[in-house]
């Protein structure tokens, strides 16, 4: 490009990377940009916008990684983004150059998209990736023939994206992209007058852009209502059949590509097909057993490895709170920081180990090619419930934590299937429910064996997990009949060749997903924690002051042994009289039929922050003190609670089971709420979800209590 063009000197040139799914696009992007990449969101949709910087020989380039797609005709949100950026719809994302990655073994499919890009009039260069794999399959590509036919620069690289990478950098640096004349004459398919009208109206540069505008302009909500209406009227006036045109375009394009491919691809000898490992991995019986075993292994690893950093984070933030509170003068500000903000941030950070590890494993499964096999195996079982084969990933992630599960749902292309998946994933029994289950089961289920082998407590725990699974499928079925969508569900996935995971890509996924969670969901979580802190630490001033004054008085007269007891009793009284305490009392009539008293009501409200908070709240209410590590103490204390009206135990079997069922179903996790908000782009679905889960929890707990009591 001539240097006289000042804009390119002021702003670094922008290069978009595009390609079919599974062609190693992200590997090349990661290698070019490394840690400089930023993940944002495209407006109006939940698609990651991956942008990075490549620095080469003193110049800087902006690289955009577009979602994989087979054509310019989008089937999902992901593909709409690729379509929109490449059509240069928004000035902000407009790339100067396009680097198209093609799988050398899939030349014709790659060229299909590449020639569409040519027709759009983009500055293009092609990368024939996985040249080494093609060589193994005895496929030779005469790339000069492609160059002759298309007139754009061509490079080749190997699957790991190491060989040929410098050439890619050099190509970008030299700005060696070219804009060749069109490949397919769109006037063969669409009426010229219509095309030129659209072209003039929107100031487009060629007829193929005009054709794309006709096809998608009225569906893209980033255009003004008038423009969309104008397009619609034009279309109906001209009686131009877009779908027939698209089929026609596909046929002609592939025919022309075939002519090129026949000249360029030489397959010397057929490689004798090796016995595929898929014979076992996709086996109707062993396939499922192996999938189950892999899941078990992953969860084992997550529970074993994530708990160490989680405990460290927990400890660190507790220390930090303590340290800050020693530094600051006592008062509301100190309390806000040490009891509100620091634990709030801690509550966000504590999820990172689980999210990072889960996404690490998912990235490995994805990268090796196993994930699409899982989709293949599970689709039949998910479909009757309105879910997709891809829903299995969020659902199994939900056993560890709903947050990465909900985040993983964005891979599902179909809107309805994605919403159902997001709605049901938090019903899987996540690891945060475990502490609540363990305390309550320990309280009411005897530690005995039935039939000499099954531990009753273990059976009860298993039952709660199965209850979660039941809740998932029941809710999915319900939503399947309620939600309406005209979008057609389809599977059509490639089962790529197995290969070793690329660790850089895996690490980048772990890093990026954790970062997204912390910075996007973190805001909402922090805000809710501060609100909960205010409600728990403040109450009607006269009552709070009276409690504090009395406590001072007692402390002044107390013997050293009594001081911790009085301190615990004071914090219990303060919580009871705080706004949350008042709310807990207020909801007592509502929760009484479930077998709960107002003290449990307080715990229900505070555990909206996170389910495990139940344990610490209960500890405060019953003046156990801050040492909640000791489950036995809590359990004994709970066992001693007597209902003043009936003289019976508060935590009898019926109440405990009712509580467990409530915790199984209720949306008591603000982090999940925050991530659902982010993934669905608004408050509508998180609110519906919260209301639904609360109602489900209430009704189920009511049923359980009424039957058992």
């Amino acid at each position: 490009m001539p240097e006289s063009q000042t804009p390119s000197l002021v702003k670094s040139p922008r290069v978009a990377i595009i390609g079919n799914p599974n062609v190693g696009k992200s590997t090349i992007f990661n290698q070019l940009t490394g840690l400089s990449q930023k993940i944002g969101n495209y407006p109006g949709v939940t698609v990651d916008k991956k942008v990075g910087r490549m620095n080469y020989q003193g110049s800087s380039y902006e690289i955009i990684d577009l979602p994989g797609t087979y054509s310019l005709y989008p089937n999902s949100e992901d593909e709409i983004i690729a379509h929109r950026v490449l059509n240069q719809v928004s000035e902000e994302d407009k790339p100067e150059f396009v680097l198209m990655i093609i799988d050398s073994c899939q030349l014709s499919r790659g060229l299909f998209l590449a020639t569409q890009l040519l027709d759009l009039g983009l500055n293009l260069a092609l990368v024939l990736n996985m040249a080494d794999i093609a060589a193994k399959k005895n496929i030779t590509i005469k790339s000069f023939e492609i160059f002759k036919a298309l007139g754009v620069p061509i490079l080749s690289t190997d699957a790991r994206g190491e060989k040929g990478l410098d050439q890619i950098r050099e190509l970008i640096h030299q700005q060696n992209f070219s804009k060749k004349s069109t490949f397919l004459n769109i006037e063969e398919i669409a009426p010229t007058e219509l095309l030129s009208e659209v072209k003039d109206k929107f100031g487009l540069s060629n007829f193929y852009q005009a054709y794309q505008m006709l096809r998608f302009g009225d569906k893209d909500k980033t255009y003004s209502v008038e423009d969309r209406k104008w397009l619609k009227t034009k279309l109906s006036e001209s009686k131009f059949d877009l779908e027939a045109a698209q089929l026609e375009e596909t046929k002609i394009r592939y025919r022309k590509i075939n002519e090129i491919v026949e000249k360029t691809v030489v397959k010397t000898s057929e490689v004798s097909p090796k016995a595929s490992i898929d014979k076992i991995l996709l086996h109707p019986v062993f396939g499922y057993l192996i999938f189950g075993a892999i899941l078990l292994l992953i969860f084992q690893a997550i529970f074993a490895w994530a708990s160490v950093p989680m405990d460290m984070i927990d400890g660190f933030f507790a220390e930090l709170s303590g340290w800050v509170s020693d530094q600051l003068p006592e008062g509301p500000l100190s309390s806000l920081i040490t009891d509100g903000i620091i634990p709030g941030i801690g509550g966000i950070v504590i999820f990172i180990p689980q999210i990072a590890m889960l996404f690490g494993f998912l990235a490995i499964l994805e990268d090796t090619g196993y994930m699409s096999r899982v989709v293949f195996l599970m689709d039949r079982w998910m479909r009757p419930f309105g879910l997709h084969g891809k829903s299995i990933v969020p659902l199994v992630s939900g056993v560890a934590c709903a947050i990465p599960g909900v985040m993983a749902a964005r891979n599902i292309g179909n809107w309805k299937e994605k919403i159902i998946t997001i709605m049901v994933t938090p019903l899987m029994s996540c690891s945060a429910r475990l502490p609540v289950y363990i305390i309550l089961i320990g309280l009411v289920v005897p530690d005995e064996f039935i039939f000499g082998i099954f531990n009753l407590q273990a059976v009860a725990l298993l039952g709660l997990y199965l209850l979660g699974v039941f809740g998932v499928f029941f809710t999915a079925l319900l939503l399947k009949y309620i939600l309406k969508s005209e979008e057609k569900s389809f599977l059509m996935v490639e089962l790529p060749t197995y290969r070793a995971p690329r660790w850089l890509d895996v690490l980048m996924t772990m890093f990026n997903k954790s970062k997204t969670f912390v910075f996007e969901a973190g805001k909402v979580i922090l805000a809710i924690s501060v609100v909960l802190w205010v409600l728990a630490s403040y109450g009607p001033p006269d009552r709070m002051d009276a409690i504090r004054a009395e406590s001072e008085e007692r402390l002044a007269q107390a013997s050293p042994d009594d001081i911790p007891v009085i301190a615990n009793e004071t914090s219990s009284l303060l919580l009871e009289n705080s706004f949350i305490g008042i709310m807990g009392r207020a909801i007592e009539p509502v929760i009484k039929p479930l077998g709960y008293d107002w003290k449990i009501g307080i715990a229900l409200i505070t555990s909206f922050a996170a389910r495990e908070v139940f344990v610490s709240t209960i500890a405060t209410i019953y003046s156990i003190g801050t040492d909640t590590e000791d489950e036995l103490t809590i359990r004994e204390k709970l066992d001693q609670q007597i209902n003043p009206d009936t003289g019976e135990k508060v935590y009898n079997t019926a109440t405990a089971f009712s509580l467990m069922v409530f915790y199984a179903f209720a949306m008591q996790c603000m982090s999940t709420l925050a991530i659902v908000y982010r993934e669905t782009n608004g408050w509508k679905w998180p609110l519906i979800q919260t209301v639904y889960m609360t109602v489900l929890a209430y009704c189920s707990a009511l049923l359980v209590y009424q039957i058992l009591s």
Partner: protein
Amino acid sequence: MTITADTIPHTRAAIIREISDSPLKINLMELGFLPGKIITLHHTAPLGGPMAFKLEETILALRKSEASLIEVQLL
């Protein structure tokens, strides 16, 4: 005789004759299911689950209903 791709026996090669009209026709064609191409059935998930076909160098999984849109002739 033309049959649909969901009924072809395992590992028997079949040549695609036509793709039936359906909203999914274009998706199938974009993936490379085009008249004249040869496909072989490699794997089937149990109970009428998805089917995996080899098409040129790739394995593509389709639902049974999607495979039934592909009209083929056994070779």
